[in-house]
């Protein structure tokens, strides 16, 4: 067993230095805020993130448990960490333009995003339930603040407050669940909990069952699965667009990675499995059906995000060796498409003076054909049309759940995927309809153009060659 003096040895391992690097990066960004140079803040942020990327990628197959096996940076954790870092870099690039007009607190917002990312890295790699809880809190608390980042906006404050209250409520459930699991198994160690669950009689232990229920409820809140989704449309709508994009990509990826890591090797008792199936069906159904009625783009994306949660949960049912890969591909491609779309939204919203109705995309193809095509590709990817990455992602999920015997759930999911195409096409139709009256032109800064192009190209390239994005 490792002891205290190994703390300094542990720095030799890259995974530790990544955590240290990112934490220090956040502090450095805070200090850079003193100089009131927004470009430098974003630049240093991106440089730091790229350094973290290189550090993680350089020792790909090093799988060492750290700190008495409290975290383990295995291939699984590394892959998800890399996706999160790449997406954060894209968001920071977008941030240069996004924060150009903002006077105050820019450095703080970048720093909080980096802190949130540290939490994300922790919950990808936890092997101890204490780290799961702590990581989820580190992931969430900066978000509560970031959601209220637009201080002159009433909706932003409302979003922050709602997210904070409901998030604390979910944390209480999670904590209660973890405490009950500890009560039943006498260990916070994930491997010990897995070993405990492998004994069939233990599945009947009510304390353990309740612990699993409450823990899953707490994590399901983070991924916005029905019936724990109520926060997401309001928060998505009220939060600044950059933060909405961060929430629906980085945070979602981290939460799903943690969720799967938690249940991957657990022998789930029958009752818990039923709960997961019911949750999946409800999420698929509600997310897609309610999205049909949305006209505000951010709310539409929120319900689309709930719908995608449903598809991802489908991959959780009856897991096997392929599940991590399927999840990874799905989350990666989903994040890329979502980031691009939120940037397009910001640009269109600016031209429309803050309106978020989907009609603001009208005339996009005439004024900015390339942006419109990229947006089309990303929307088609989210809808799951062949030749885009979204299709491959959905297809893999369906194959996985079919081979694991969830036939009717899969049939429902396929139906819901078809329903989903409708509301994405609505947005596409707006973008390709010419605008009748004169409006402010949509201005695209070169960096934004670059990020949108990267995202648009990525969903096609990954759709044609899915092998490029795998663990």
């Amino acid at each position, binding site marked *: 067993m490792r*002891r205290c003096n190994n703390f300094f040895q542990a720095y030799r391992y890259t995974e530790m230095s990544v955590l240290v690097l990112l934490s220090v990066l956040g502090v450095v960004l805070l200090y850079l805020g003193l100089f009131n140079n927004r470009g430098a803040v974003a630049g240093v942020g991106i440089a730091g993130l790229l350094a973290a990327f290189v550090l993680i990628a350089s020792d790909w197959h090093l799988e060492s448990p*750290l700190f008495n096996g409290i975290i383990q940076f295995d291939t699984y954790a590394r892959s998800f960490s890399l996706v999160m870092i790449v997406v954060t870099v894209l968001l920071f690039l977008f941030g240069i333009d996004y924060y150009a*007009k903002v006077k105050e607190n820019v450095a703080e917002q970048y720093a909080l995003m980096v802190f949130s990312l*540290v939490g994300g890295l922790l919950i990808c790699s936890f092997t101890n339930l204490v780290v799961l809880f702590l990581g989820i809190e580190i992931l969430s*608390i900066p978000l509560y603040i970031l959601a209220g980042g637009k201080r002159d906006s009433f909706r932003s404050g409302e979003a922050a407050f709602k997210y904070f209250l409901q998030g604390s409520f979910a944390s209480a459930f999670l904590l209660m669940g973890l405490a009950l699991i500890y009560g039943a198994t006498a260990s916070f160690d994930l491997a010990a909990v897995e070993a405990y669950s492998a004994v069939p009689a233990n599945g009947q232990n009510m304390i353990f*069952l309740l612990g699993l229920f409450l823990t899953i409820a707490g994590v399901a809140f983070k991924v916005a699965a029905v019936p724990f989704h109520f926060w997401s449309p309001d928060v998505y709508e009220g939060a600044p667009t950059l933060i909405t994009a961060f929430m629906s990509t980085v945070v979602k990826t981290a939460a799903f990675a943690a969720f799967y890591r938690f249940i991957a090797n657990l022998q789930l008792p029958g009752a818990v499995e039923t709960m997961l199936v019911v949750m999946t069906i409800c999420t698929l159904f509600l997310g897609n059906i309610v999205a049909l009625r949305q006209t505000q783009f951010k709310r539409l994306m929120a319900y689309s995000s709930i719908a995608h949660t449903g598809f991802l949960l489908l991959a959780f049912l009856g897991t096997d060796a392929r599940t991590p890969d399927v999840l990874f591909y799905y989350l990666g491609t989903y994040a890329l498409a979502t980031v691009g779309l939120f940037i397009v939204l910001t640009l269109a919203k600016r031209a429309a003076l803050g309106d978020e109705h989907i009609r603001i995309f009208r005339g996009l193809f005439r004024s900015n054909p390339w942006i419109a095509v990229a947006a089309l590709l990303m929307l088609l990817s989210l809808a799951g049309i062949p030749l885009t990455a979204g299709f491959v992602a959905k297809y893999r999920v369906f194959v996985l759940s079919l081979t694991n015997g969830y036939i009717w759930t899969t049939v429902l999911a396929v139906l819901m995927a078809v329903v989903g195409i409708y509301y994405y096409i609505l947005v596409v139709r707006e973008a390709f309809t010419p605008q009748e009256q004169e409006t402010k032109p949509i201005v695209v800064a070169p960096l934004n153009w670059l990020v949108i192009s990267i995202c648009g190209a990525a969903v096609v390239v990954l759709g044609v060659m899915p092998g490029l994005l795998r663990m």
Partner: protein
Amino acid sequence: MLALFYLFAAISVISALIVVSARKPVNSVIALVVCFLSIAGHYVLLNAQFLAMVHVIVYTGAIMVLFLFVIMLLNLNKATEPMKSLGMRVAAITGGALLFITLAAAIRQGVHIESANPFDAGVGLVRTVGHVLFTEFLLPFEVSSVLFLSAIVGVVMLAKKEKHQPEAPVEPLTEAERARRTA
């Protein structure tokens, strides 16, 4: 000892009920202080003196007293009930009742908890807690600094007075917002 346990348990349950049912925020906060104190009593019964002291100092002493000040300074002590629709009430009661039934049923099924490790009288001493914190749980201990730092940054960010008016034009109301405000 068992009698003491039941006494503390009764106090914590009753005061917790008062917290959620009290009409005036000040009564609610004072009930919460009582609840925290009785929980600290539980810690003492479990021989966790350090935890009990920290609990009293931090939660009861610092946080709850701060709460009281905030409520009194901002003059929030009005027994007003925010408007809640009937549907919301029904949903809340149904949800809460279902959770309660599940928990009660689970406990009725017969819960046998035997301690996995023999009871160690020194488990709650400062020395033991510190040792565990700096060996086994070193990483969580260190990494929680990130949590606190982001909380501090957030408080400063949200509470700081604007130096100058925002230059960006105020966003026009969206349709949904307009409807909400007029309603």
